[in-house]
Each structure stands twice: as C-alpha cells, then as structure tokens.
C-alpha cells in the first residue's frame, strides 16, 4: 500500500514535469490568448477545463503554470542546496573561529520567520525570477548548511578520511571525493522535502504580487487572478489549487518514503 502510494506520487510528479517540459506540445491553446467574448466558460470540447475571467484556456495555463511553478521550485531548492552545502562544508571542515562565526550566522537566519524574510527581500529586490531565487535561497540555506556541517563533523573523523589524508590528498579532493558522496543521501532527502515548501512559498509570493508578475501563466498568479471571480465560478480557483495540492502531496509522500528508506521507521525526530 505504501509502496503503491510512493509510485503513484512519482507518477504524478513525472506528469507535472513532463507537462512543464512539453508545454508547447501538450497545451491545447496559447495560455495568454485572451477571448473576451468567452469569459468563465464551462468546460467544453474546445476548452477542456473551461476558461478564466479573460477567456483564457484554463488547462493550457495549468500546463504552462507547471513549467513555471514546478521548475522554479526545483531550481530554487537546487540553489538553496548548493549555497547551504557550500557554507556547511566550509564551516564543518574548517572548524575553529570560522565555524563558530558561520554557525552564529546560521542561528541568526533560522531566527527570522522565513515568509516574512522572503517577502522583505523580494520587496526590496523587485519582482522577477532572479529575485525569487535569491530570496528563497537567502531564507532557507541555513537548514541545509546545518545538516551538512553536522555530517561533515561526523565524517571527518572516520578512519578512511584519515587514510586519504595520510596518502597526501588535499582538503579539496577529500571534500569532493570522500566527504560529499557520504553526505549526499541525507541531503537529497532534505532537499526533496524542501521542494514542496518552496513551491508553496513561490506561489504565495506570486499571489501577493511580489514574485512573478501577471500575465505569466503560473499557479500562484492564477490563484491571485481567481480571487475576484471564484465566488461566481469556483473552478478558476479549484484548478490551480488542486495542482498545487497534488504536487505538494506527491512531494510529501516521496520524501516520507525516502526518509523511511534512509533511516528506518519508528524514530520520530526525522519526520520534519
């Protein structure tokens, strides 16, 4: 049963990713083609899910939206992972005052509510993909860096690392060839779980008008567009909300399963 859910979640994720990559081929209409004669139309053979308040095809906007929302979430999580890991590696490997200083910075960044911080950074940098990436990475690198540092501290004392050093390997090559592969797995599990919260953050920011800007086809913007019309026609809200929920649900299920595989069931501390 659990296995089945895991594979179902993987399949859903695959569908979203495929939709994102092949949006041009899969989308029946242009996502931004306005048809003012046909606002909030019911589902029909021309528009499978109907149209939004400007007569734009909902299904096409969802498909293009998965390109924007899903890819941005993966990319932003990737950036966060890189930045956090780099700082964590340096911190754990260098030790001493540098480690103390960096850990202080980590504590500081974990001490600020992340939504507030992302919104503040976005507000100051202005909307756009680049600002979104910076804001997400700046607000959530600390968690990754803490995990990497602790893993590095645990790994660096192992005998084979000592052996590699005795053989004359430099710090950089030890870090890349021995330490990183060892800590990759827990890091990826953490990143998998983070993709879900990132997609929500990005959608929330676009919803507030701080992330991507209308008329981009993005789930957050679709929800923002829907807020004036959902009372009349619930589907304009339901469609992007369902996509976001389905995406996060599959990410949760995948992350749960990966975590269980990584450190066995029963211990509750790893649940978040």
């Amino acid at each position, binding site marked *: 049963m659990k296995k089945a859910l895991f594979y179902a979640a993987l399949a859903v994720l695959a569908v979203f990713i495929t939709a994102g990559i092949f949006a041009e081929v899969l989308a029946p209409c242009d996502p931004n083609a306005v048809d003012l004669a046909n606002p909030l139309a019911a589902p029909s053979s021309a528009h499978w899910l109907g149209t939004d308040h400007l007569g734009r095809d909902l299904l096409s906007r969802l498909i293009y939206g998965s390109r924007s929302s899903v890819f941005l979430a993966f990319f932003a999580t990737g950036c966060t992972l890189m930045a956090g890991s780099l700082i964590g590696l340096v911190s754990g490997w260098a030790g001493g005052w540098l480690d103390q200083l960096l850990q202080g910075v980590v504590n*500081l960044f974990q001490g600020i509510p*992340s939504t507030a911080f*992302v*919104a503040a950074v976005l*507000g100051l940098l202005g909307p756009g993909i680049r600002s979104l990436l910076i804001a997400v990475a700046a607000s959530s690198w600390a968690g990754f860096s803490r995990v990497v540092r602790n893993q590095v501290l645990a790994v660096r004392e192992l005998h084979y690392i000592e052996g590699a050093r005795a053989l004359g390997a430099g710090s950089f090559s030890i870090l890349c060839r021995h330490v990183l592969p060892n800590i990759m797995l827990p890091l990826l599990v953490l990143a998998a779980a983070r993709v879900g919260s990132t997609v929500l953050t990005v959608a929330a920011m676009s919803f507030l*008008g701080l992330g991507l800007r209308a008329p981009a086809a993005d789930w957050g913007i679709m929800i923002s567009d829907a807020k004036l019309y959902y009372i009349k026609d619930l589907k304009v809200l339901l469609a992007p909300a369902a996509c*976001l929920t389905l995406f996060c649900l599959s990410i949760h299920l995948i992350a749960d399963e990966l975590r269980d595989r990584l450190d066995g069931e029963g211990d509750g*501390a790893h649940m978040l």
Partner: protein
Amino acid sequence: MGHILRYTGKKLLWTVPILLGITLLAFGLGLAARGDPAVNRASVDPDYVPTREEIQALREALGLTVPAPVQYGRWMAGVLRGDLGRSLMDDKPVLGEMLRLLPNTLILSGMALAVIAAAGIFGGVLLALFHGRFVDAAGRAVLVTVMSVPGFCLAYFLIWLFAQKLRVLPSSGAEGPLHFVLPCLAVSAASACAAARLLRASLLGELGRNYILTARAKGLGRGRLLLRHALRNALPPTVTHIASAFGGLLGGSMITEQIFSVPGIGSYALAAIQNRDYTALRGYVLFTGLVFVLVCLGCDLLCAWLNPQIRLGE
C-alpha cells in the same frame, strides 16, 4: 532548580548575539533596497515632480548622506530608546503603528497557535492509540492531504463555503471574535496536521522503549501508558515544531491578513513592501525577529522542563 536557572541563563545569553545579528540584517535589508528612499519619499504625490534640491534636502533630513555604519549607529540608538523611526509613506512612527496593529495579529496568531497545539496533540495521541488500525491509516491520509493544501487556497475555500454558501461566518474584518475563526483555521490547518503527524511518530518511537515495556509489565493500561509516560517524553520535537510554526504564523499573517482584510502588522508590512518603505520594513523584520526569538527561547525552556536530559546534557 539550580541547573534549570543555569540553563535559562545560558539560553538568554545566546539570544543577545542573535538579536544583534537581526538588527544588522534588518538594517542591511534597507541598504540593499533598490531605488532611492528620498526619491520615493518625495514622489508620494504622483502629480508632483520633485526638484534635485528638494531630493537632496530630503536625503539629508533622512540622514542618508552619512556613511552606512553611522546610519546603523543612529538607527540602533533609536531602537534602544524604542524609536524605530518614521514611516517614509505617512510619516507616522513605525513602532506606534505596529503596536496599534499588533493586537489583531497577536489574537490571530495566538488562536492559531492554540489550535495547532490542541489539535496536533489530540490528533497525534489519537492516531498513536489506534496504531495499525483503520482510524490510524485514514487519519494519516487526511493529515498528509490537508498538509499539502496551500494556506491561501484553503482561506478562499473557507470563505466560499462558510461566508458565501452557508453564510454562517464573516469573511473579512476584525470586529469580533467570529471574524477570527476563518483566518485562524486557514493558517493553522497545515501546521496542526504536521504537528499531529510528528507527535504520532515520536509517540510510536517512544512506545518501543524499555521503560514502556516495564510499565506495561507492571500492568499499566494502554491509554494511561501513552498519556502519563510516553507523551511527556515524546513532546519535545512537537513543541519545537509548534514554536517554529509560530514563526510561520507571524510571516504568514502577511497573506492571511490581506485575504481576510484584518488590519494587523502583516498587512502593514505588505503595504511597506509595496511602497518600498524601508524604515517600516526594517521595523517589521526587527520586531518579528524579536518575537520569534523569544518564542523559541520559551520553547527551549519548555522542552528542558519536559525532558531533564536536555538541560543536563548541555
């Protein structure tokens, strides 16, 4: 009692550099802002184009001509006196405005926190009690699904259902307690589910330990075992989760307050962001950071009280 005081003192000392760092970060955010605050300030009236001299005069009046460290020093001197400066938009004191709006945000976050704690603990214990049975499986499916619904989507569904279709609850404003029901549900649902999931997992982990075996061998019932023995030891991770959820509530209030038209510090911050009012934004970041750090401190102390190993282990 001595070690708990020592633990408290140590934790308190740790918050000092963090608070200092938060002031630096809040100040730095203002420096990194694009655009010139003096230009923004001068162009409040869209029909009026300010002259160069006027902008320069404003720049001096706002203290922007001195180097950044001096600006930080002046700002900090104000912060320590309880003066966060004046908003660039309406010239009102930032602290005063935030304190005026704070009660709504606090009521909302406090209610949400109570819901998260109560529902999370109740749900977690319930699922652990029914472990391996249908209730457990169904409950977990519901939890993970609700966790995946974005809060701002949930907010609109709640408005649609309770305010539009059933017409039982108001959808906007902050006039009475009923106005807080929907926003509170919208912000707390996901965190409450996450808390219940976490507690269930830690309870089940705890139930596998030897002291539980001993207690059971002495003939203790399942419910009593769970509530009197396992719960106390299983709580710390959940308490930590709930405390960090409070940070989410503070930041998330920006979205909720906007959707439900609640005048609070979240909507104040959003307006500050939209107007690039960096004085107000600095104040907001500093303020939420401070509140969050204090909540985390309280959470650490609560965990230390629940589990003596934590305070003795340090």
